[in-house]
């Protein structure tokens, strides 16, 4: 540098920095503007959204308006509208003159009031000020002088100039009076005006109401309002702020249409000429379920509690939706949106709102139970029976110890009392001692209740899989290893998942299961009639839960096993016992001793070897025994012969002969048994099955209650971590085509390193995260492949995504304490026993039976719909019916209410607990109060009875044509219940509603509508009435209802006798086939 030539000028002082400054300043200014722009627009993309919204929504409203105008025109064509508008015109014309006069008077009064008011208020203010001085002055003289001043002022005359230029001089009092007078006059006049205008106003309201009531969409006026609102809209953040729940949701800053009263689809918002809805169009749609929003008012709930996402963020779509790395609550994907329901409704088994069913989340919840997920994974609220039992046990212990304490205390107090110094003290101590004894008696009562409960709960406990203690009695030995190899190979629709067992494990497990089973012998049965068995199987309702046939041929419900190949595996004698009463147990189990009790135990105590729900105490120690098979399969109250017929039929269901299975003699190898035990424990078989020695086995899986909010780092993607984060086709770890087809969104393409991706992959192929890893057979992932379908995985994923620890305050949780809680409890039982396979409980719900071909033409043969069951039946009757659907202790081989139905309401042996829950459920579902106090039905006079009878037997009201009457000949063709049941069974108000319009209560019922018509505010019979009705002014509907409720068997016979009827009833061909069965139906109605 030193070599460089020295410049002439001193560079330090001569160098100019102007250019530097120039450039720097320009850049600085540019940066500042950039910062401003960024703040105003860059960080506020919603402004662009709102601009677009204004354009597109206005255009949409224009279209909507013309449509609305058209439909308004339609309404205006209506004669009723014309009438109303004519009425309006007349009323307006009539009142016009009077209204004008009154209005003029009113105007005049107002003007005069104003004139007085200006003077009066001024003077009153001065008086008030003086009065204040008087009030606050302390000396009497001062007060006196003030008083004088006030009086003088009040006496002064003030001039009031009225509108008509007339002047008046008034003192204060006159002024006040004048003022009040004019004011009263004005009030009177405005009331008068209202009266005058009333006819016109009323007519106007009627007209307006008529228009709104008759237009499906908004009226043009309403749309104009929306148009104006849209046009006047200034871009601004739209936010919902709920401080108590820390919700700040600005979603509506972009989703402007969410709460609009019109239905807006993405297509509506797509600009013309564009094929696909763009980002804006998709953002502007209205909420698809406005009804949901009316329950969950967004002003209270916001958006994010249901949908998640980052409600505060408005800087970009990704930020707002929370779809970025560090946001823990990203928006639920559209297809999983119902996961949001779990936030508050995790305790509800079935989510229904109005007519909207939340099928995804509902089926997720149901699958979780049905597929036995909770056999391995704990989930809060999904282990009710065992948890309740545990709870009850603890309470019992606590109360017992409290009782002992009380006794001790009593003894001590009494001793103290005896030694007390004074009588008062002794009495006080004795009183306390007595109180404690009474307290103990109360505790005894409570204990008894708890004992009942634990009895009930033992009864309620069910297992998802069959009892494996019975394998030796039940199964073809050689079949077991084949089944374990891959259950779906034998039965594609089985609930039993595939555990990917190797041969060695299969041998060991089968050996253990076989050797640990009961070795009791079963009573022998002779073979029955397979053809009759088939008929019974198809008609008695077995197909509600079971299916038969494979692939396209499959028919029946999916709740229980498919029986297509049952003949290959089952033992006939066991099958007969099972069909006759599946709950029948080989040996009772004592949870206290943890062993199965055999006849030898009973013999030791000299007791008969008898165990059932009434004999459920352990002979050894008196503890409650498990006396039932823990299955939900009910008893169909079949005769032993029928059971044999069905079993014989089922044995014919096979693809190969049972003897074709290779011999599995190794199952008797005792060495394998020990190893088998290890594997049974390893794979958690006891989660679903009852297995000897594993009755109290714990769960092997992780708890899933809050799986959705588990940090992503805790979900072990193993070698797929990196690929999942990056996405792309090659990131898909599942290679098996069958499993690949289970993925709801198909093979991975986008990055899937999130909860959804994990759940979906794990459910599609549970060992997917072992992919590429070297693991020993004990280390390998144990979760079995549940062979779920795409939709099932979608539902379960939704369920798990929603299983989050919520930050919402407790008040947001749906934990109702009232009738709605009964509904929650009831659904648990309803789903447990698959009631919905036969009965329609919520509108639109399909039952398994509805799909069967034999009911397509005979829908009246379907089980009754229970849409308004709670309103229909007396709860006490319902309880009786549910515990014994035959409604008879002796004649059980029939239906109690509808003997004409071939499908049979089974006996579920509900515990008292579950009976209570079910009864409450139906009452609550129909919004009926509990307890039910029956309505008093008035006693009919003889004349009324005669009238009712004559109507009842007339051809116009052929009630007994369909309803059973107790006459065996008639009842063969009856298609409706006996009226004699009504008194105990039904609620009178429901009966009235029912006979008016049965189609509204139970759509599709055989009972026709249109029996009554309304006349003079009375319901009268629509057809010709018997002559005795002439001059009767009462309500026919009420009369008939009262009559039904007072019907006696004699009266019923009298009605039947008076009916024109031929003797012989001929059966329809289908009836003929069931001749054998119909003898049971004959005795209908007599059971009361």
């Amino acid at each position, binding site marked *: *540098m*030193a070599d*460089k030539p*020295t*410049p002439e000028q*001193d*560079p*330090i*002082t001569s160098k100019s*920095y102007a250019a*530097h*400054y120039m450039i*720097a*300043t320009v*850049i*600085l200014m540019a*940066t*500042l503007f*950039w*910062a401003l722009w*960024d703040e105003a627009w*860059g960080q506020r993309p919603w402004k662009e959204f709102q601009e677009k919204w204004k354009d597109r929504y206005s255009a949409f409203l224009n279209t909507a308006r013309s449509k609305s105008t058209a439909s308004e025109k339609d309404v205006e064509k209506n004669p009723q509208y014309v009438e109303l508008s004519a009425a309006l015109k007349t009323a307006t014309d009539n009142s016009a003159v009077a209204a004008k006069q009154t209005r003029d008077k009113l105007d005049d009064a107002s003007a005069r009031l104003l004139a007085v008011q200006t003077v009066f208020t001024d003077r009153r203010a001065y008086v008030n000020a003086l009065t204040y001085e008087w009030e606050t002055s302390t000396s009497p003289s001062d007060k006196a002088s003030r008083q004088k001043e006030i009086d003088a002022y009040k006496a002064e005359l003030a001039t009031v100039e009225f509108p008509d230029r007339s002047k008046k001089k008034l003192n204060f009092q006159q002024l006040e009076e004048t003022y009040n007078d004019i004011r009263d006059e004005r009030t009177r006049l405005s009331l008068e005006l209202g009266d005058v205008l009333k006819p016109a106003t009323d007519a106007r309201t009627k007209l307006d109401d008529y228009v709104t009531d008759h237009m499906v969409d908004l009226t043009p006026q309403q749309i104009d309002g929306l148009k104006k609102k849209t046009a006047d809209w200034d871009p601004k953040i739209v936010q919902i702020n709920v401080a108590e729940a820390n919700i700040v949701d600005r979603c509506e800053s972009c989703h402007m249409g969410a709460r609009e009263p019109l239905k807006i689809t993405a297509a509506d918002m797509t600009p013309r000429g564009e094929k696909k809805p763009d980002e804006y169009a998709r953002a502007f749609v209205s909420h698809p379920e406005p009804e949901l929003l009316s329950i969950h008012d967004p002003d209270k709930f916001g958006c994010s509690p249901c949908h998640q996402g980052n409600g505060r963020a408005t800087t970009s779509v990704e930020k707002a939706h929370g779809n970025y*790395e*560090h*946001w*823990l609550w990203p928006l639920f994907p559209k297809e999983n949106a119902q996961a949001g329901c779990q936030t508050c409704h995790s305790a509800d088994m079935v989510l229904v709102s109005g007519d909207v069913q939340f099928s995804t989340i509902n089926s997720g919840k149901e699958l979780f139970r049905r597929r036995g997920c909770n056999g391995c994974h704990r989930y809060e609220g999904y282990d009710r029976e065992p948890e309740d039992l545990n709870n009850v046990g603890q309470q019992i212990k606590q109360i017992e110890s409290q009782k002992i304490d009380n006794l001790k205390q009593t003894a001590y107090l009494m001793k103290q009392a005896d030694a007390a110094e004074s009588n008062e003290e002794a009495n006080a101590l004795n009183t306390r001692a007595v109180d404690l004894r009474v307290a103990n008696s109360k505790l005894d009562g409570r204990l008894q209740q708890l004992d009942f409960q634990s009895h009930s709960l033992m009864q309620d406990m069910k297992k998802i899989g069959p009892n494996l203690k019975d394998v030796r009695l039940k199964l073809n030995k050689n079949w077991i290893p084949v089944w374990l190899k891959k259950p779906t190979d034998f039965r594609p629709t089985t609930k039993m998942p595939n555990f990917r067992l190797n041969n060695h494990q299969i041998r060991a497990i089968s050996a253990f299961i076989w050797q640990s089973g009961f070795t009791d012998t079963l009573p022998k049965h002779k073979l029955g009639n397979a053809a009759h068995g088939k008929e019974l199987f198809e008609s008695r309702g077995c197909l509600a839960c079971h299916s038969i046939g494979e692939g396209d041929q499959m028919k029946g419900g999916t709740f229980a096993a498919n029986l297509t190949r049952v003949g290959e595996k089952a033992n006939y004698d066991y099958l007969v016992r099972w069909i006759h009463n599946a709950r029948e147990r080989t040996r009772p189990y004592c949870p206290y001793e943890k062993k199965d009790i055999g006849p030898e135990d009973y013999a030791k105590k000299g007791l008969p070897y008898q165990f059932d729900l009434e004999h459920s105490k352990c002979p050894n120690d008196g503890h409650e025994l498990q006396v039932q098979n823990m299955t939900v399969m009910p008893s169909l109250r079949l005769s032993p012969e029928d059971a044999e017929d069905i079993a014989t039929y089922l044995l014919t269901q096979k693809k190969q002969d049972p003897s074709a299975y290779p011999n599995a003699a190794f199952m008797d190898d005792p060495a394998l048994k020990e190893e088998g035990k290890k594997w049974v424990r390893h794979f958690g078989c006891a989660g679903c099955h009852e297995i000897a020695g594993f009755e109290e086995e714990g769960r092997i899986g992780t708890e899933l209650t809050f799986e959705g909010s588990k*940090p992503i*780092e*805790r979900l072990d993607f*193993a*070698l797929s*971590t*990196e690929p999942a984060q*990056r996405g792309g086709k090659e990131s898909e770890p599942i290679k098996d085509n069958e499993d690949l087809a289970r993925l709801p969104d198909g093979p991975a393409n986008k990055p899937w390193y999130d909860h959804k991706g994990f759940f979906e992959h794990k459910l599609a192929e549970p060992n997917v995260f072992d992919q590429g890893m070297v693991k020993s057979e004990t280390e390998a992932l144990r979760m079995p492949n549940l062979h779920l379908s795409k939709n099932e995985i979608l539902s379960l994923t939704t369920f798990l995504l929603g299983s989050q620890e919520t930050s919402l305050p407790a008040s947001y949780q749906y934990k109702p304490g009232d009738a709605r809680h009964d509904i929650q409890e009831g659904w648990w039982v309803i789903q447990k026993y698959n009631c919905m396979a036969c009965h329609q409980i919520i509108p639109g719900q399909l039952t398994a039976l509805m799909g069967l071909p034999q009911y397509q033409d005979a829908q009246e043969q379907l089980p009754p719909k229970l849409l308004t069951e709670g309103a229909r039946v007396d709860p006490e009757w319902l309880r009786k019916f549910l515990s014994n659907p035959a409604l008879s202790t002796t004649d059980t081989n029939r239906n109690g209410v509808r003997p004409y139905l071939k499908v049979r309401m089974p006996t579920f042996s509900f515990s008292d607990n579950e009976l209570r829950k079910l009864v409450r459920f139906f009452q609550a579902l129909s919004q009926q109060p509990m307890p039910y106090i029956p309505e008093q039905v008035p006693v009919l006079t003889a004349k009324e009875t005669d009238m009712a009878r004559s109507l009842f037997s007339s051809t116009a009201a052929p009630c007994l044509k369909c309803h059973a009457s107790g006459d065996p000949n008639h009842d063969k063709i009856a298609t409706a219940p006996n009226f004699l049941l009504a008194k105990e069974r039904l609620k009178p108000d429901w009966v009235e509603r029912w006979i008016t319009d049965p189609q509204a209560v139970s759509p599709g019922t055989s009972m026709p509508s249109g029996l009554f018509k309304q006349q003079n505010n009375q319901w009268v019979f629509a057809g010709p009435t018997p002559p005795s009705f002439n001059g009767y002014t009462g309500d026919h509907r009420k009369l008939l209802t009262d009559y039904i409720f007072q019907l006696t068997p004699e009266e019923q016979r009298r009605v039947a006798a008076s009916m024109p009827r031929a003797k012989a009833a001929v059966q329809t061909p289908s009836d003929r086939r069931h001749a054998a069965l119909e003898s049971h139906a004959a005795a209908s109605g007599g059971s009361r």
Partner: protein
Amino acid sequence: MDWRQLWEICSAPDNVPIVALIPLLAFYIYLAWRQAHANDQLIGQLEADPALAKTHHRKTWPFKPGWQKEVHVWPFLLRIEFLGAIIVTIILMIWSITLNAPLEEPANPNLTMNPAKAPWYFLGLQEMLVYFDPWIAGVVMPTMIIIGLMVIPYIDTNPLGSGYYTWKQRRFSISTFLFGFVILWVAMIIIGTFIRGPGWQWFWPGQTWDHNRLIYEVNRDLPDEVPRWLGGPITSNWAKGVFGAIVVGGYYLIGGGAVYSLFRRRMAKDFQRMSLLQFSLMAFLWLTMVALPLKMSLRLLWHIKYVWITPWFNI
């Protein structure tokens, strides 16, 4: 080569300063080197020509008699300062507009981050945790660094090179500082940021940060590695302590000797100017600093974890 991984690390908002630091440091080292080189040339020229040395203004920048020797702060300095302020403002604003400060999930004591990294400027210390126990890496070493920095003016007795860049006149001090700052501080930070992945494992740039990676690495202690001919692996705790003390003490003694030898031969003048305290302090700090890479190489190359094992502390 996993470019995506590399990009992810480099573009992490908190790593941007480190990415920026590398070229900045390179630029300034170059800037310093250029001036030092020019000065050194000038010094050589002047030392060769004493006459010129008497008259020369002794700077590498041009100077003419009559030019102001001092200039007014206003405007000549302040205009540069203001310009600097504007430029810094611009840089900061653009940086702030384009890159958001990181904000991760809410703190969750139950969910450990992997890797859990200290702020980037402490990554050098965190890297030291691999080689030393926390009490050395986390407490002793920072203290030593601060003390070491603070005593620099008192142990650097070389009066030359005050107020100008030079290499020739301050080879030892500059090379020591460069070693400490660039190699031990900045390079460690870069290693901590770019090389250390999940589990604080060593990932070469472009290698995927695999959370499941397992590596075989068994570390031994020096006393166990004593060859058989030297008395075999030392087993007793007491002997281990003594052995370690000997090794460490030996290092400082022999090292001290080497430093003395170096100074006596190469920097005699500096050595003369130094008091015993100054020299021994300097030697101790210098040896301690050099000990770091030695220990690191023991660990990285021979998997030696501890040298000195006592019941109370391990080094």
